């Protein structure tokens, strides 16, 4: 497989695509939002249970490509137990990484497992696949019920 392809379809990404984590509805949830990319049809619902500023539980449902599904799955795994403030900071860093604004290797390493998505920056049309779940999570925390990445 060529290097760029290996970068984008890493084992971790393929694994989360095959068996997504936290793929369920939280009911009742404190925050929820629906994310849609009308151009490609990726569709995600994010559910959060936030107690005293801490994300006690987070989950997702929906369908999309391997990149969007694994991104949602890994996001839920990474954000569980974090504070809302931390989640927002991670979102900003993640977004900077996939759009190619964050290139410092040390900073990217700090993103831990999320760094597997750095290869996405070489595929401009796939950036929105990787960031849809994040935008939706962000919108849910700000009580926006619907978000589109067009």
């Amino acid at each position, binding site marked *: *497989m*060529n290097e*760029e*392809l290996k970068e*984008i*379809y890493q084992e971790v990404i*393929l694994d989360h695509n095959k068996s997504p984590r936290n793929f369920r509805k939280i009911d009742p949830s404190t925050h929820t939002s629906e994310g849609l990319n009308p*151009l*490609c*049809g990726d*569709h995600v619902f994010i559910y959060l249970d936030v107690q005293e500023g801490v994300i006690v539980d987070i989950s997702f449902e929906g*369908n*999309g*490509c*391997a*990149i969007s599904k694994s991104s949602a799955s890994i996001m839920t795994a990474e954000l569980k137990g974090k504070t809302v403030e931390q989640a927002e900071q991670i979102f900003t860093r993640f977004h900077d990484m996939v759009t190619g604004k964050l290139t410092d290797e040390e900073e990217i390493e700090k993103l831990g497992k999320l760094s597997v998505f750095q290869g996405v920056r070489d*595929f401009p*049309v*796939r950036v929105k*696949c990787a960031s849809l779940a994040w935008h939706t999570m962000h919108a849910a925390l700000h009580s926006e019920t619907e978000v589109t990445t067009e």
Partner: protein
Amino acid sequence: MNQCPLPGWRRHDLSVTFDKTIYNEIPYKFEAGTPNIADTIGLGAAIDYIETIGIDRISTYESELYLYAEETILPIDEVTLIGCAEKKGSVFSFKLKDIHPHDVGTIMDMEGIAIRTGHMCTQPVMKHFGVPALSRISIGLYNTKADIDRAAEGIKKVLEVFA
């Protein structure tokens, strides 16, 4: 009717003074600015090109290539052909297991094969077939059997990545 024309190149007005403007007759009064000359000339060139080759020959060639695509790609077990209308154009729309077409597209792109992926702006059709989107090989007169062979290889590559 007080339809105010746009200013422009064509003789859309016959006489203009501060006191009175006399507009030309319809359609000229509405044809302001430089007409789309480049596209018109381009269309003429495109028609000439197709007539030089012959639209029947193009149709025959594309149909042959399409049949070759069926012979070459359909034997791949994971491929499901969508759209089997008689006398359809030379397009090969397909589903590849449960692999999302955008993943199919990215991987084939890396192999140098350009295909169309997505809901094809026909979401009701996607719903009918129970798929979120499809992948489509669109065959044109500039394609060859070798291109179809490469596309088949590309599809196998996708299956390898998602094994």
